Protein backbone atom coordinates (compact mmCIF):
# COMPACT_ATOMS: atom_id res chain seq x y z
CA UNK A 1 0.00 0.00 0.00
CA UNK A 2 2.74 2.45 0.98
CA UNK A 3 4.65 1.47 -2.14
CA UNK A 4 1.60 2.16 -4.24
CA UNK A 5 1.13 5.63 -2.75
CA UNK A 6 4.81 6.50 -3.19
CA UNK A 7 4.78 5.31 -6.82
CA UNK A 8 1.64 7.32 -7.49
CA UNK A 9 3.16 10.43 -5.87
CA UNK A 10 6.38 10.11 -7.89
CA UNK A 11 4.42 9.59 -11.10
CA UNK A 12 2.73 12.94 -10.53
CA UNK A 13 6.02 14.83 -10.97
CA UNK A 14 6.62 14.07 -14.68
CA UNK A 15 2.91 14.58 -15.32
CA UNK A 16 3.05 18.06 -13.81
CA UNK A 17 6.20 18.89 -15.78
CA UNK A 18 4.52 17.74 -18.97
CA UNK A 19 1.34 19.71 -18.35
CA UNK A 20 3.32 22.86 -17.56
CA UNK A 21 5.45 22.30 -20.67
CA UNK A 22 2.34 22.01 -22.83
CA UNK A 23 0.85 25.21 -21.48
CA UNK A 24 4.22 26.92 -21.72
CA UNK A 25 4.75 25.97 -25.36
CA UNK A 26 1.21 26.99 -26.28
CA UNK A 27 1.59 30.37 -24.60
CA UNK A 28 4.88 31.00 -26.41
CA UNK A 29 3.06 30.85 -29.72
CA UNK A 30 0.72 33.68 -28.89
CA UNK A 31 2.04 36.56 -30.99
CA UNK A 32 5.59 37.09 -29.73
CA UNK A 33 6.83 39.33 -26.98
CA UNK A 34 4.10 41.43 -25.33
CA UNK A 35 6.39 44.42 -24.72
CA UNK A 36 7.12 44.92 -28.40
CA UNK A 37 3.47 45.68 -28.98
CA UNK A 38 3.30 48.55 -26.54
CA UNK A 39 2.13 51.87 -27.94
CA UNK A 40 5.22 53.86 -27.12
CA UNK A 41 8.32 52.65 -28.86
CA UNK A 42 11.00 51.78 -26.32
CA UNK A 43 14.67 52.26 -26.93
CA UNK A 44 16.74 49.11 -27.54
CA UNK A 45 18.46 49.50 -24.16
CA UNK A 46 15.17 49.54 -22.29
CA UNK A 47 13.94 46.66 -24.41
CA UNK A 48 17.05 44.70 -23.49
CA UNK A 49 16.48 45.52 -19.83
CA UNK A 50 12.86 44.42 -20.02
CA UNK A 51 13.88 41.22 -21.76
CA UNK A 52 16.45 40.57 -19.07
CA UNK A 53 13.99 41.34 -16.29
CA UNK A 54 11.45 38.85 -17.64
CA UNK A 55 14.13 36.39 -18.81
CA UNK A 56 12.98 36.75 -22.40
CA UNK A 57 16.58 36.95 -23.63
CA UNK A 58 17.23 33.35 -22.62
CA UNK A 59 16.53 30.27 -24.75
CA UNK A 60 13.08 28.71 -24.27
CA UNK A 61 14.24 25.71 -22.22
CA UNK A 62 15.91 28.02 -19.72
CA UNK A 63 12.72 30.07 -19.54
CA UNK A 64 10.79 26.86 -19.02
CA UNK A 65 13.13 25.72 -16.27
CA UNK A 66 12.85 29.12 -14.57
CA UNK A 67 9.07 28.97 -14.86
CA UNK A 68 8.95 25.47 -13.36
CA UNK A 69 11.16 26.72 -10.55
CA UNK A 70 8.70 29.56 -10.02
CA UNK A 71 5.73 27.19 -9.94
CA UNK A 72 7.54 24.90 -7.51
CA UNK A 73 8.15 27.82 -5.16
CA UNK A 74 4.59 29.11 -5.62
CA UNK A 75 5.69 32.17 -7.57
CA UNK A 76 3.76 32.59 -10.81
CA UNK A 77 5.53 35.78 -11.85
CA UNK A 78 4.31 39.32 -12.44
CA UNK A 79 1.22 40.40 -14.33
CA UNK A 80 2.00 42.02 -17.66
CA UNK A 81 -0.92 44.44 -17.62
CA UNK A 82 -1.35 45.29 -13.96
CA UNK A 83 2.23 46.33 -13.32
CA UNK A 84 2.00 46.42 -9.55
CA UNK A 85 0.33 43.03 -9.17
CA UNK A 86 1.81 39.60 -9.38
CA UNK A 87 -0.13 36.59 -10.61
CA UNK A 88 0.02 35.38 -7.03
CA UNK A 89 -1.88 38.46 -5.86
CA UNK A 90 -4.57 37.76 -8.43
CA UNK A 91 -4.79 34.12 -7.42
CA UNK A 92 -4.99 35.06 -3.77
CA UNK A 93 -7.76 37.56 -4.44
CA UNK A 94 -9.95 35.49 -6.76
CA UNK A 95 -9.18 31.83 -6.25
CA UNK A 96 -10.78 31.35 -2.80
CA UNK A 97 -14.09 32.50 -4.25
CA UNK A 98 -13.96 29.98 -7.10
CA UNK A 99 -12.87 27.30 -4.68
CA UNK A 100 -15.83 28.00 -2.43
CA UNK A 101 -18.22 28.03 -5.38
CA UNK A 102 -16.86 24.73 -6.72
CA UNK A 103 -16.87 23.09 -3.30
CA UNK A 104 -20.44 24.13 -2.50
CA UNK A 105 -21.61 22.98 -5.94
CA UNK A 106 -19.88 19.63 -5.40
CA UNK A 107 -21.55 19.23 -2.00
CA UNK A 108 -24.90 20.08 -3.58
CA UNK A 109 -24.31 17.54 -6.34
CA UNK A 110 -23.23 14.74 -3.98
CA UNK A 111 -25.88 15.33 -1.32
CA UNK A 112 -28.75 15.35 -3.81
CA UNK A 113 -27.40 13.34 -6.75
CA UNK A 114 -26.34 10.16 -4.93
CA UNK A 115 -29.64 9.62 -3.04
CA UNK A 116 -31.51 10.33 -6.27
CA UNK A 117 -29.54 7.61 -8.07
CA UNK A 118 -29.88 5.16 -5.16
CA UNK A 119 -33.66 5.55 -4.89
CA UNK A 120 -34.06 5.34 -8.66
CA UNK A 121 -32.04 2.09 -8.73
CA UNK A 122 -34.03 0.57 -5.87
CA UNK A 123 -37.28 1.11 -7.77
CA UNK A 124 -36.22 0.56 -11.39
CA UNK A 125 -38.83 1.48 -14.02
CA UNK A 126 -41.06 3.14 -11.43
CA UNK A 127 -42.47 6.60 -11.96
CA UNK A 128 -39.82 7.98 -9.63
CA UNK A 129 -37.08 6.27 -11.64
CA UNK A 130 -38.36 7.75 -14.90
CA UNK A 131 -38.76 11.20 -13.39
CA UNK A 132 -35.28 11.07 -11.85
CA UNK A 133 -33.67 9.89 -15.08
CA UNK A 134 -35.52 12.46 -17.17
CA UNK A 135 -34.27 15.07 -14.75
CA UNK A 136 -30.75 13.65 -14.89
CA UNK A 137 -30.74 13.68 -18.69
CA UNK A 138 -32.05 17.22 -18.79
CA UNK A 139 -29.54 18.36 -16.18
CA UNK A 140 -26.79 17.26 -18.52
CA UNK A 141 -28.23 18.55 -21.75
CA UNK A 142 -29.50 22.00 -20.82
CA UNK A 143 -26.61 24.46 -21.11
CA UNK A 144 -25.67 25.97 -17.76
CA UNK A 145 -26.14 29.51 -19.05
CA UNK A 146 -29.82 28.79 -19.62
CA UNK A 147 -30.20 27.21 -16.17
CA UNK A 148 -28.49 30.22 -14.60
CA UNK A 149 -30.58 32.71 -16.56
CA UNK A 150 -33.84 30.93 -15.74
CA UNK A 151 -32.91 30.72 -12.06
CA UNK A 152 -32.25 34.46 -12.01
CA UNK A 153 -35.40 35.18 -13.96
CA UNK A 154 -37.68 33.24 -11.64
CA UNK A 155 -36.08 33.37 -8.19
CA UNK A 156 -34.50 36.79 -8.27
CA UNK A 157 -36.87 38.79 -10.49
CA UNK A 158 -40.29 37.27 -11.06
CA UNK A 159 -40.76 35.85 -7.56
CA UNK A 160 -38.11 38.13 -6.12
CA UNK A 161 -40.52 39.37 -3.45
CA UNK A 162 -40.95 35.86 -2.07
CA UNK A 163 -37.39 34.57 -2.29
CA UNK A 164 -35.51 37.85 -2.20
CA UNK A 165 -32.42 36.41 -3.87
CA UNK A 166 -29.97 38.82 -5.51
CA UNK A 167 -29.18 38.49 -9.22
CA UNK A 168 -25.41 38.69 -8.87
CA UNK A 169 -22.49 39.02 -6.50
CA UNK A 170 -20.89 36.78 -3.89
CA UNK A 171 -21.07 38.78 -0.64
CA UNK A 172 -24.00 37.37 1.27
CA UNK A 173 -25.13 33.77 1.69
CA UNK A 174 -28.29 34.59 -0.26
CA UNK A 175 -26.24 35.56 -3.27
CA UNK A 176 -24.48 32.16 -3.23
CA UNK A 177 -27.62 30.03 -3.52
CA UNK A 178 -28.40 30.50 -7.21
CA UNK A 179 -24.82 30.16 -8.55
CA UNK A 180 -24.25 26.99 -6.52
CA UNK A 181 -27.48 25.41 -7.82
CA UNK A 182 -26.71 26.49 -11.41
CA UNK A 183 -23.21 25.00 -11.24
CA UNK A 184 -24.20 21.92 -9.25
CA UNK A 185 -27.13 20.70 -11.36
CA UNK A 186 -24.96 19.17 -14.10
CA UNK A 187 -22.70 17.18 -11.74
CA UNK A 188 -25.76 16.22 -9.72
CA UNK A 189 -27.38 14.72 -12.82
CA UNK A 190 -24.09 12.96 -13.56
CA UNK A 191 -23.89 11.43 -10.08
CA UNK A 192 -27.52 10.33 -10.22
CA UNK A 193 -27.01 8.53 -13.55
CA UNK A 194 -23.71 6.99 -12.52
CA UNK A 195 -24.89 5.75 -9.12
CA UNK A 196 -28.11 4.33 -10.57
CA UNK A 197 -26.14 2.43 -13.21
CA UNK A 198 -23.56 0.91 -10.87
CA UNK A 199 -26.20 0.21 -8.24
CA UNK A 200 -28.33 -1.81 -10.68
CA UNK A 201 -25.19 -3.73 -11.61
CA UNK A 202 -24.26 -4.38 -7.97
CA UNK A 203 -27.76 -5.58 -7.10
CA UNK A 204 -27.26 -8.41 -9.62
CA UNK A 205 -24.06 -9.64 -7.98
CA UNK A 206 -23.84 -13.06 -6.40
CA UNK A 207 -22.64 -11.71 -3.07
CA UNK A 208 -25.79 -9.64 -2.74
CA UNK A 209 -27.91 -12.73 -3.39
CA UNK A 210 -25.81 -14.66 -0.88
CA UNK A 211 -26.25 -11.95 1.72
CA UNK A 212 -29.99 -12.01 1.18
CA UNK A 213 -30.09 -15.80 1.19
CA UNK A 214 -28.32 -16.07 4.50
CA UNK A 215 -31.11 -13.98 6.00
CA UNK A 216 -29.40 -10.64 6.43
CA UNK A 217 -31.82 -7.78 6.88
CA UNK A 218 -32.33 -5.87 3.63
CA UNK A 219 -31.28 -2.59 5.18
CA UNK A 220 -27.99 -4.15 6.23
CA UNK A 221 -27.43 -5.75 2.82
CA UNK A 222 -27.92 -2.36 1.26
CA UNK A 223 -25.61 -0.49 3.58
CA UNK A 224 -22.80 -3.04 3.79
CA UNK A 225 -22.81 -4.78 0.42
CA UNK A 226 -24.60 -2.70 -2.16
CA UNK A 227 -23.88 0.93 -1.29
CA UNK A 228 -20.22 0.46 -0.47
CA UNK A 229 -19.56 -1.23 -3.80
CA UNK A 230 -21.73 1.12 -5.80
CA UNK A 231 -20.12 4.30 -4.61
CA UNK A 232 -16.53 3.59 -5.65
CA UNK A 233 -17.16 4.66 -9.28
CA UNK A 234 -18.59 7.90 -7.95
CA UNK A 235 -15.26 8.50 -6.19
CA UNK A 236 -13.34 8.01 -9.45
CA UNK A 237 -15.77 10.27 -11.25
CA UNK A 238 -15.00 13.07 -8.81
CA UNK A 239 -11.61 13.72 -10.44
CA UNK A 240 -12.79 14.43 -14.00
CA UNK A 241 -15.82 16.17 -12.52
CA UNK A 242 -13.52 18.75 -11.03
CA UNK A 243 -12.56 19.71 -14.57
CA UNK A 244 -16.25 19.97 -15.33
CA UNK A 245 -16.81 22.24 -12.33
CA UNK A 246 -13.93 24.49 -13.38
CA UNK A 247 -15.23 24.66 -16.95
CA UNK A 248 -18.72 25.36 -15.69
CA UNK A 249 -17.62 28.00 -13.25
CA UNK A 250 -16.28 30.12 -16.14
CA UNK A 251 -19.83 30.59 -17.35
CA UNK A 252 -21.49 30.79 -13.95
CA UNK A 253 -19.04 33.40 -12.65
CA UNK A 254 -19.51 35.35 -15.85
CA UNK A 255 -23.31 35.36 -15.57
CA UNK A 256 -23.54 36.05 -11.83
CA UNK A 257 -20.68 38.58 -11.92
CA UNK A 258 -18.80 36.60 -9.28
CA UNK A 259 -15.21 37.88 -8.92
CA UNK A 260 -13.70 34.39 -9.17
CA UNK A 261 -10.87 32.96 -11.21
CA UNK A 262 -13.06 32.00 -14.17
CA UNK A 263 -14.34 35.51 -14.67
CA UNK A 264 -10.83 36.88 -14.26
CA UNK A 265 -9.54 34.36 -16.81
CA UNK A 266 -11.87 35.74 -19.47
CA UNK A 267 -10.86 39.30 -18.58
CA UNK A 268 -7.18 38.39 -18.75
CA UNK A 269 -7.55 36.79 -22.19
CA UNK A 270 -9.26 39.86 -23.63
CA UNK A 271 -6.68 42.13 -21.97
CA UNK A 272 -3.90 39.90 -23.43
CA UNK A 273 -2.38 39.53 -19.99
CA UNK A 274 -0.57 36.36 -20.94
CA UNK A 275 1.40 35.76 -17.78
CA UNK A 276 -1.88 35.74 -15.88
CA UNK A 277 -3.55 33.45 -18.44
CA UNK A 278 -0.62 31.09 -18.25
CA UNK A 279 -0.41 31.19 -14.47
CA UNK A 280 -4.12 30.47 -14.11
CA UNK A 281 -4.05 27.68 -16.72
CA UNK A 282 -1.14 26.03 -14.96
CA UNK A 283 -2.93 26.43 -11.64
CA UNK A 284 -6.12 24.79 -12.95
CA UNK A 285 -4.15 22.00 -14.61
CA UNK A 286 -2.13 21.34 -11.46
CA UNK A 287 -5.34 21.16 -9.42
CA UNK A 288 -6.84 18.62 -11.82
CA UNK A 289 -3.67 16.52 -11.86
CA UNK A 290 -3.46 16.55 -8.06
CA UNK A 291 -7.17 15.73 -7.76
CA UNK A 292 -6.70 12.77 -10.12
CA UNK A 293 -3.84 11.62 -7.93
CA UNK A 294 -5.90 11.84 -4.74
CA UNK A 295 -8.75 10.00 -6.46
CA UNK A 296 -6.43 7.23 -7.65
CA UNK A 297 -4.99 6.78 -4.18
CA UNK A 298 -8.48 6.75 -2.65
CA UNK A 299 -9.55 4.24 -5.26
CA UNK A 300 -6.56 2.07 -4.44
CA UNK A 301 -7.62 2.11 -0.79
CA UNK A 302 -11.24 1.30 -1.61
CA UNK A 303 -10.55 -1.31 -4.25
CA UNK A 304 -7.19 -3.06 -3.83
CA UNK A 305 -7.50 -4.77 -7.23
CA UNK A 306 -6.76 -1.50 -9.01
CA UNK A 307 -3.45 -0.81 -7.27
CA UNK A 308 -1.25 -2.59 -9.76
CA UNK A 309 -3.05 -1.35 -12.85
CA UNK A 310 -3.06 2.26 -11.88
CA UNK A 311 0.38 2.86 -10.44
Amino acid at each position, binding site marked *: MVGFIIRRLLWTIPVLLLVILMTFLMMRH*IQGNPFRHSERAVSPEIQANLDRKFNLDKPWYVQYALYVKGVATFDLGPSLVLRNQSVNDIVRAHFPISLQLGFLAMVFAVVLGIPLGVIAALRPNSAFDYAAMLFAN*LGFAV*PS*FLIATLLI*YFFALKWGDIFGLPTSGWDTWQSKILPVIALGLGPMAYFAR*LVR*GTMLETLQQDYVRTAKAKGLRWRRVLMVHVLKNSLTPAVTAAGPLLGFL*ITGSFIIEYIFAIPGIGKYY*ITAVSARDYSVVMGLTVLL*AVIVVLANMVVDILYGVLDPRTREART
Partner: protein
Amino acid sequence: MVVSPQQQRMRSPDPAHSGDIQVAGAGTPIAQSSLWRDARRRYMRNKGAVVAGTIFIALVAFCIFVPIVSPYDPDQVNFADAYLPPSLAHPFGTDQFGRDLLTRVALGGRISIAIGFAATLAILVIGLTYGSISGFVGGWVDNAMMRFLDALYGLPYLPFAIITLAIVGTVNFWTMVIALSIASWFTSARIVRGQIITLKENDYVRAATAVGARWYRVLARHLVPNTLGVLIIAIFLELPGVILGEAFLSFIGLGINPPSASWGSMAQEGREVYRTHTNVILIPSIAIATLVLCANFIADGLRDALDPRTKET
Protein backbone atom coordinates in the same frame (compact mmCIF):
# COMPACT_ATOMS: atom_id res chain seq x y z
CA MET B 1 -17.84 13.20 -21.74
CA VAL B 2 -21.32 12.16 -20.81
CA VAL B 3 -20.67 8.49 -20.30
CA SER B 4 -17.85 7.83 -17.91
CA PRO B 5 -15.15 5.28 -18.60
CA GLN B 6 -16.68 3.21 -15.82
CA GLN B 7 -19.89 2.93 -17.73
CA GLN B 8 -17.94 2.07 -20.83
CA ARG B 9 -16.14 -0.64 -19.01
CA MET B 10 -19.22 -2.27 -17.56
CA ARG B 11 -19.82 -5.27 -19.67
CA SER B 12 -22.56 -7.83 -19.45
CA PRO B 13 -23.67 -10.35 -22.02
CA ASP B 14 -26.60 -9.27 -24.08
CA PRO B 15 -29.44 -11.73 -23.47
CA ALA B 16 -31.19 -10.67 -26.65
CA HIS B 17 -28.25 -11.46 -28.84
CA SER B 18 -27.40 -14.95 -27.67
CA GLY B 19 -29.26 -17.66 -29.47
CA ASP B 20 -30.06 -15.96 -32.72
CA ILE B 21 -27.23 -17.49 -34.69
CA GLN B 22 -28.19 -17.40 -38.30
CA VAL B 23 -27.51 -20.30 -40.59
CA ALA B 24 -26.96 -19.37 -44.19
CA GLY B 25 -26.38 -21.39 -47.31
CA ALA B 26 -22.82 -21.78 -48.46
CA GLY B 27 -21.55 -18.98 -50.64
CA THR B 28 -24.17 -16.40 -49.74
CA PRO B 29 -22.45 -13.18 -48.71
CA ILE B 30 -24.27 -12.62 -45.45
CA ALA B 31 -21.62 -11.44 -43.03
CA GLN B 32 -21.60 -7.74 -43.79
CA SER B 33 -25.28 -7.13 -44.37
CA SER B 34 -26.56 -9.21 -41.46
CA LEU B 35 -24.34 -7.34 -39.03
CA TRP B 36 -25.95 -4.06 -40.02
CA ARG B 37 -29.41 -5.61 -40.19
CA ASP B 38 -29.01 -6.96 -36.67
CA ALA B 39 -27.77 -3.61 -35.51
CA ARG B 40 -30.76 -1.86 -37.03
CA ARG B 41 -33.17 -4.32 -35.46
CA ARG B 42 -31.59 -3.80 -32.04
CA TYR B 43 -31.62 -0.01 -32.49
CA MET B 44 -35.28 0.00 -33.51
CA ARG B 45 -36.20 -1.91 -30.35
CA ASN B 46 -34.98 1.02 -28.23
CA LYS B 47 -37.96 3.39 -28.28
CA GLY B 48 -36.11 6.31 -26.73
CA ALA B 49 -33.32 6.07 -29.28
CA VAL B 50 -35.78 5.91 -32.19
CA VAL B 51 -37.65 9.00 -30.99
CA ALA B 52 -34.35 10.80 -30.38
CA GLY B 53 -33.08 9.85 -33.81
CA THR B 54 -36.26 11.13 -35.45
CA ILE B 55 -36.11 14.45 -33.61
CA PHE B 56 -32.41 14.74 -34.44
CA ILE B 57 -33.04 14.27 -38.16
CA ALA B 58 -36.00 16.66 -38.02
CA LEU B 59 -33.84 19.29 -36.32
CA VAL B 60 -31.08 18.97 -38.90
CA ALA B 61 -33.66 19.14 -41.73
CA PHE B 62 -35.19 22.21 -40.07
CA CYS B 63 -31.79 23.95 -40.05
CA ILE B 64 -31.10 23.05 -43.67
CA PHE B 65 -34.46 23.88 -45.25
CA VAL B 66 -35.99 26.72 -43.22
CA PRO B 67 -33.51 29.40 -44.42
CA ILE B 68 -34.15 28.31 -48.02
CA VAL B 69 -37.92 28.69 -47.86
CA SER B 70 -38.00 31.57 -45.37
CA PRO B 71 -39.27 34.87 -46.81
CA TYR B 72 -37.00 36.86 -44.45
CA ASP B 73 -33.44 37.97 -45.07
CA PRO B 74 -31.59 36.79 -41.95
CA ASP B 75 -29.19 39.75 -41.99
CA GLN B 76 -31.67 42.49 -42.91
CA VAL B 77 -31.82 45.08 -40.11
CA ASN B 78 -35.25 46.58 -39.51
CA PHE B 79 -35.56 48.44 -36.23
CA ALA B 80 -39.29 48.96 -36.64
CA ASP B 81 -39.76 45.22 -36.14
CA ALA B 82 -37.36 44.83 -33.17
CA TYR B 83 -38.42 42.42 -30.42
CA LEU B 84 -41.74 41.43 -31.88
CA PRO B 85 -43.42 38.75 -29.77
CA PRO B 86 -44.09 35.37 -31.40
CA SER B 87 -46.83 35.66 -33.99
CA LEU B 88 -48.01 33.97 -37.16
CA ALA B 89 -45.61 36.01 -39.29
CA HIS B 90 -42.69 35.38 -36.90
CA PRO B 91 -43.38 32.11 -35.01
CA PHE B 92 -40.41 32.69 -32.65
CA GLY B 93 -40.55 36.51 -32.68
CA THR B 94 -37.70 38.81 -33.72
CA ASP B 95 -34.40 39.95 -32.19
CA GLN B 96 -33.06 43.43 -31.43
CA PHE B 97 -32.47 44.16 -35.12
CA GLY B 98 -35.91 43.00 -36.17
CA ARG B 99 -34.56 39.81 -37.72
CA ASP B 100 -36.80 36.76 -37.84
CA LEU B 101 -35.73 34.38 -35.06
CA LEU B 102 -37.05 31.27 -36.80
CA THR B 103 -34.73 31.89 -39.75
CA ARG B 104 -31.86 32.95 -37.48
CA VAL B 105 -32.11 29.89 -35.23
CA ALA B 106 -32.05 27.61 -38.27
CA LEU B 107 -28.95 29.38 -39.63
CA GLY B 108 -27.34 29.30 -36.19
CA GLY B 109 -28.08 25.59 -36.08
CA ARG B 110 -26.26 25.10 -39.38
CA ILE B 111 -23.14 26.67 -37.87
CA SER B 112 -23.43 24.93 -34.49
CA ILE B 113 -24.13 21.51 -35.97
CA ALA B 114 -21.47 21.89 -38.68
CA ILE B 115 -18.84 22.91 -36.12
CA GLY B 116 -20.04 20.11 -33.86
CA PHE B 117 -19.65 17.42 -36.51
CA ALA B 118 -16.39 18.81 -37.89
CA ALA B 119 -14.82 18.97 -34.42
CA THR B 120 -16.14 15.51 -33.57
CA LEU B 121 -14.59 14.13 -36.76
CA ALA B 122 -11.29 15.83 -35.93
CA ILE B 123 -11.41 14.32 -32.43
CA LEU B 124 -12.10 10.87 -33.86
CA VAL B 125 -9.36 11.11 -36.50
CA ILE B 126 -6.79 12.11 -33.88
CA GLY B 127 -8.13 9.51 -31.47
CA LEU B 128 -8.15 6.79 -34.11
CA THR B 129 -4.59 7.54 -35.20
CA TYR B 130 -3.22 7.81 -31.69
CA GLY B 131 -5.21 4.92 -30.28
CA SER B 132 -4.51 2.50 -33.11
CA ILE B 133 -0.78 3.20 -33.10
CA SER B 134 -0.67 2.75 -29.36
CA GLY B 135 -2.76 -0.41 -29.35
CA PHE B 136 -1.20 -1.96 -32.43
CA VAL B 137 2.47 -1.36 -31.68
CA GLY B 138 2.10 -2.29 -28.02
CA GLY B 139 5.03 -2.73 -25.67
CA TRP B 140 6.86 0.30 -24.36
CA VAL B 141 5.45 2.56 -27.09
CA ASP B 142 1.93 1.74 -25.91
CA ASN B 143 2.99 2.25 -22.33
CA ALA B 144 4.55 5.64 -23.03
CA MET B 145 1.61 6.80 -25.14
CA MET B 146 -0.92 5.76 -22.52
CA ARG B 147 1.05 7.44 -19.76
CA PHE B 148 0.98 10.61 -21.83
CA LEU B 149 -2.81 10.29 -22.10
CA ASP B 150 -3.13 9.64 -18.36
CA ALA B 151 -1.25 12.88 -17.80
CA LEU B 152 -3.65 14.88 -19.89
CA TYR B 153 -6.79 13.09 -18.79
CA GLY B 154 -9.30 15.24 -16.99
CA LEU B 155 -7.70 18.55 -17.93
CA PRO B 156 -10.41 21.16 -18.46
CA TYR B 157 -10.64 21.77 -22.19
CA LEU B 158 -12.05 25.29 -22.00
CA PRO B 159 -8.81 27.09 -20.95
CA PHE B 160 -6.92 25.26 -23.69
CA ALA B 161 -9.60 26.10 -26.23
CA ILE B 162 -9.41 29.76 -25.20
CA ILE B 163 -5.60 29.78 -25.48
CA THR B 164 -5.82 28.13 -28.91
CA LEU B 165 -8.20 30.82 -30.10
CA ALA B 166 -5.79 33.44 -28.74
CA ILE B 167 -2.87 31.82 -30.60
CA VAL B 168 -4.60 31.76 -33.97
CA GLY B 169 -5.91 35.28 -33.38
CA THR B 170 -9.08 35.12 -35.45
CA VAL B 171 -12.21 33.16 -34.71
CA ASN B 172 -13.76 31.44 -37.70
CA PHE B 173 -15.20 28.04 -38.49
CA TRP B 174 -11.89 26.20 -38.74
CA THR B 175 -10.11 27.83 -35.82
CA MET B 176 -13.17 27.01 -33.72
CA VAL B 177 -12.94 23.37 -34.81
CA ILE B 178 -9.24 23.26 -33.88
CA ALA B 179 -9.85 24.94 -30.53
CA LEU B 180 -12.61 22.50 -29.63
CA SER B 181 -10.74 19.36 -30.64
CA ILE B 182 -7.27 20.19 -29.32
CA ALA B 183 -7.94 19.09 -25.74
CA SER B 184 -10.89 16.74 -26.24
CA TRP B 185 -9.52 13.69 -28.05
CA PHE B 186 -8.15 11.79 -25.04
CA THR B 187 -11.25 9.69 -24.39
CA SER B 188 -11.66 8.61 -28.00
CA ALA B 189 -7.99 7.61 -28.22
CA ARG B 190 -8.47 5.42 -25.15
CA ILE B 191 -11.59 3.80 -26.58
CA VAL B 192 -9.89 3.01 -29.90
CA ARG B 193 -6.79 1.62 -28.21
CA GLY B 194 -8.89 -0.66 -26.01
CA GLN B 195 -10.80 -1.89 -29.02
CA ILE B 196 -7.64 -2.57 -31.05
CA ILE B 197 -6.06 -4.51 -28.20
CA THR B 198 -9.16 -6.68 -27.83
CA LEU B 199 -9.34 -7.24 -31.59
CA LYS B 200 -5.67 -8.17 -31.83
CA GLU B 201 -6.35 -11.32 -29.82
CA ASN B 202 -9.06 -12.50 -32.21
CA ASP B 203 -8.46 -15.67 -34.19
CA TYR B 204 -8.95 -14.09 -37.59
CA VAL B 205 -6.25 -11.54 -36.85
CA ARG B 206 -3.88 -14.30 -35.70
CA ALA B 207 -4.79 -16.26 -38.78
CA ALA B 208 -4.08 -13.28 -41.02
CA THR B 209 -0.69 -12.82 -39.37
CA ALA B 210 -0.02 -16.55 -39.57
CA VAL B 211 -0.62 -16.71 -43.32
CA GLY B 212 1.88 -13.89 -43.73
CA ALA B 213 -0.19 -10.73 -44.03
CA ARG B 214 1.89 -7.62 -43.58
CA TRP B 215 1.25 -5.51 -40.47
CA TYR B 216 -0.27 -2.60 -42.42
CA ARG B 217 -2.65 -4.99 -44.16
CA VAL B 218 -3.77 -6.47 -40.83
CA LEU B 219 -4.22 -2.97 -39.45
CA ALA B 220 -6.07 -1.54 -42.44
CA ARG B 221 -8.08 -4.66 -43.32
CA HIS B 222 -8.95 -6.23 -39.97
CA LEU B 223 -8.38 -3.87 -37.10
CA VAL B 224 -9.45 -0.39 -38.16
CA PRO B 225 -12.67 -1.47 -39.96
CA ASN B 226 -13.72 -3.37 -36.85
CA THR B 227 -13.45 -0.25 -34.73
CA LEU B 228 -16.06 1.37 -36.98
CA GLY B 229 -18.95 0.46 -34.67
CA VAL B 230 -17.22 1.97 -31.69
CA LEU B 231 -16.38 5.07 -33.71
CA ILE B 232 -19.99 5.60 -34.79
CA ILE B 233 -21.03 5.42 -31.14
CA ALA B 234 -18.20 7.79 -30.25
CA ILE B 235 -19.51 10.40 -32.71
CA PHE B 236 -22.66 10.77 -30.68
CA LEU B 237 -20.80 10.53 -27.39
CA GLU B 238 -18.48 13.40 -28.32
CA LEU B 239 -21.00 15.57 -30.15
CA PRO B 240 -22.83 16.90 -27.03
CA GLY B 241 -19.62 18.03 -25.37
CA VAL B 242 -18.41 19.77 -28.51
CA ILE B 243 -21.74 21.50 -29.16
CA LEU B 244 -21.89 22.69 -25.55
CA GLY B 245 -18.23 23.76 -25.67
CA GLU B 246 -18.87 25.88 -28.76
CA ALA B 247 -21.93 27.38 -27.10
CA PHE B 248 -19.92 28.25 -23.97
CA LEU B 249 -17.15 29.89 -25.98
CA SER B 250 -19.65 31.88 -28.02
CA PHE B 251 -21.55 32.81 -24.89
CA ILE B 252 -18.50 34.40 -23.25
CA GLY B 253 -17.85 36.33 -26.45
CA LEU B 254 -15.19 34.15 -28.10
CA GLY B 255 -17.46 32.82 -30.81
CA ILE B 256 -17.89 33.33 -34.53
CA ASN B 257 -18.14 36.98 -35.54
CA PRO B 258 -21.46 38.67 -36.38
CA PRO B 259 -23.53 38.77 -38.49
CA SER B 260 -23.07 34.98 -38.56
CA ALA B 261 -24.23 33.46 -35.35
CA SER B 262 -24.21 30.06 -33.74
CA TRP B 263 -26.76 29.05 -31.12
CA GLY B 264 -24.30 30.06 -28.42
CA SER B 265 -23.81 33.59 -29.73
CA MET B 266 -27.58 33.95 -30.25
CA ALA B 267 -28.07 32.98 -26.61
CA GLN B 268 -25.50 35.58 -25.64
CA GLU B 269 -27.48 38.26 -27.48
CA GLY B 270 -30.61 37.05 -25.72
CA ARG B 271 -28.82 37.15 -22.38
CA GLU B 272 -28.83 40.96 -22.45
CA VAL B 273 -32.60 41.18 -22.70
CA TYR B 274 -33.79 38.08 -20.87
CA ARG B 275 -35.90 40.12 -18.45
CA THR B 276 -38.12 41.58 -21.13
CA HIS B 277 -37.75 39.26 -24.12
CA THR B 278 -37.12 35.79 -22.73
CA ASN B 279 -37.75 34.09 -26.07
CA VAL B 280 -34.49 35.43 -27.53
CA ILE B 281 -32.31 33.40 -25.13
CA LEU B 282 -34.81 30.57 -24.69
CA ILE B 283 -35.07 29.50 -28.32
CA PRO B 284 -31.39 28.88 -29.13
CA SER B 285 -30.84 27.33 -25.68
CA ILE B 286 -33.72 24.91 -26.15
CA ALA B 287 -32.30 24.04 -29.56
CA ILE B 288 -28.93 23.20 -27.95
CA ALA B 289 -30.59 21.19 -25.19
CA THR B 290 -32.70 19.23 -27.70
CA LEU B 291 -29.70 18.38 -29.82
CA VAL B 292 -27.57 17.32 -26.84
CA LEU B 293 -30.38 15.25 -25.33
CA CYS B 294 -31.05 13.50 -28.65
CA ALA B 295 -27.35 12.79 -29.18
CA ASN B 296 -27.16 11.17 -25.72
CA PHE B 297 -30.11 8.88 -26.43
CA ILE B 298 -28.81 8.05 -29.90
CA ALA B 299 -25.45 7.11 -28.40
CA ASP B 300 -27.20 4.80 -25.93
CA GLY B 301 -29.22 3.18 -28.70
CA LEU B 302 -26.18 2.79 -30.96
CA ARG B 303 -24.21 1.18 -28.18
CA ASP B 304 -26.90 -1.45 -27.70
CA ALA B 305 -27.09 -1.89 -31.46
CA LEU B 306 -23.46 -1.94 -32.56
CA ASP B 307 -21.62 -3.14 -29.50
CA PRO B 308 -23.96 -5.51 -27.69
CA ARG B 309 -21.29 -6.61 -25.25
CA THR B 310 -21.11 -3.19 -23.62
CA LYS B 311 -24.64 -2.68 -22.54
CA GLU B 312 -25.46 0.28 -20.40
CA THR B 313 -27.61 -0.61 -17.44
